[in-house]
């Protein structure tokens, strides 16, 4: 089985977020960049587990500049077989999806496993867009994935529970927690990653559908109103009369 896993580079959650150029650009100064958690912990690890069980190949693809190499090598150290980097600074999700779809068209993947969302723009976009570009079925918010005889059995999150569906491959999956247990690369993996193939390709021209015209930071930190633990009734009164939420 041949599996493609798109990986994104995102600021670590604990990073302080700041903007420059009159609040129109994200400032990477002092930010630590990591592999997007749902891509690394769930999508990539589940792909590797399936390969370990059934044979095949796991390819990771990243759209980004040369400074992403560390993240790509980490994916190889965790267990991907080879990597493709589309050499471009991504402009929006549509652009990223178009690059991934284009690559996938030339390679005949049985399965594409993306993460459910990136933790920077929280957009849940790339997996669904790639599926539509390739005219493939897609299931999002996936918590379980088993494959047997070319048929995937998938459990996904729905309102108030889960649903289990069966779909024939090829297809696109958007992974979330519970799909796999995160793996930490071991020394052998890290050494091996250095010599695994990393192909750099140029990007295809794609139109830009959205433009971010400005960022806004929360106006001010909230002012917490304290109530004494001996006067809990006062809190209930405030929630009823002032906040009007109960």
């Amino acid at each position, binding site marked *: 089985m041949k599996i493609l896993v798109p990986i994104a580079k995102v600021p670590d959650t604990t990073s302080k977020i700041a903007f420059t150029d009159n609040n129109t650009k994200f400032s990477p100064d002092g930010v630590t960049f990591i592999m997007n958690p749902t891509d690394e912990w769930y999508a990539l690890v589940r792909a590797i587990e399936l390969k370990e069980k059934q044979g095949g190949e796991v390819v990771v693809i990243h759209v980004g500049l040369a400074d992403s190499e560390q993240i790509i090598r980490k994916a190889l150290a965790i267990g991907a077989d080879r990597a493709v980097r589309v050499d471009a600074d991504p402009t929006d999700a549509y652009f990223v999806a178009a690059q991934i779809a284009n690559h996938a068209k030339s390679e005949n993947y049985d399965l594409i496993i993306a993460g459910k969302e990136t933790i920077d723009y929280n957009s849940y976009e790339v997996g669904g867009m790639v599926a539509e570009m390739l005219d493939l079925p897609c299931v999002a918010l996936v918590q379980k994935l088993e494959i047997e005889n070319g048929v995937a059995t998938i459990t996904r999150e729905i309102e108030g529970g889960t649903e289990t569906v069966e779909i024939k491959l090829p297809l696109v999956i958007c992974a979330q927690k519970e799909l796999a247990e995160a793996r930490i690369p071991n020394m052998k993996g890290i050494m091996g990653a250095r010599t695994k193939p990393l192909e750099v390709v140029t990007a295809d021209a794609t139109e830009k559908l959205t433009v971010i*015209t400005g*960022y806004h930071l929360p106006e001010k930190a909230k002012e917490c109103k304290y109530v004494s633990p001996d006067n809990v009734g006062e809190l209930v009164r405030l929630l009823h009369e002032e906040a009007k939420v*109960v």
Partner: protein
Amino acid sequence: MAVLSFVEVSQGKIKKASVEAAYYGSKVAEGLGTDSVVVVLGAASADELATLGTVGVKKVLHAADARFNNFDSKAFTKAVSEAANVAGATVVVLSFNQNGKLLAPRLSVRLKAAYVPGAVELPEFNGASATVKKNVFSGKASASYQLNTEKKVIAVNPNSLSPVRGAGAAEVEAFAPTLADADFSSVVKGADLIVGEIPLSEAELVVSAGRGLKGPENWGPIEELAKVLGAATACSRAVSDVDWRPHHEHVGQTGLTVRPNLYIAVGISGAIQHLAGVNGSKVIVVVNTDPEAPFFKAADYGIVGDAAVVVPKLIEEFKKLKAAH
């Protein structure tokens, strides 16, 4: 021209998140001086659909085709884009809920439409372009997305705006999208629904607790408080990781994102990864023994105190309030 909203029906009732999407669509239509149209796929009663008139919907395109009774992202994308063409829609609105999060990006590709995932406000139009705000960096900032294409797709964050109901009934019209059986790829084998509880993603009130409760045996008062309020229960990841609570209750960066009107956090420190899933809540109440707990910085109301003492008092006081109103 029209604005088309995608509405989902579950167990005969229009989903709350879909009512919000339809209301949002009607507001956009009002701003553009055009009609608010809705598309519904799968079984639904005409009476239930007509109630969409109360949130400003003029017409409902209803495809009663039983093949739509289960969600299939590929088939639904085809059907909704066909509805957009039938209605002559320039804007398509969906809820940023479980199905919407997948349907909307697919539609964006199919319609070659700029897309904003998780809008928190109504768009501002400037000629043919629209600007919509959404949260980014897990709630640490927001961004204005400018949509410049002729067609636009907007997925609206649940609980971003409260629909105001008026009078009126929507006209329901049969709609038969041209789909082949081959367009449907998934076969539903079953569902596992948490019964007797309010689904967390739909809840307006949430009572959440963390490691400060010391052990799973101490959740009784939290559940009772939730019951008195008619709230859903949630928890921190630290607690679901050790199986004190079920995984579906875990909120935060790696769990569910909730945006209730009221989020009561008991014995949760307020780590940034936890806040990422709850900081869209309208009002946050924090109960914690540590006055330095970071959660107080994100709180509207706080009690520095022991959960074991404060929660039973909250139950009593809310009971009194409920009895008086």
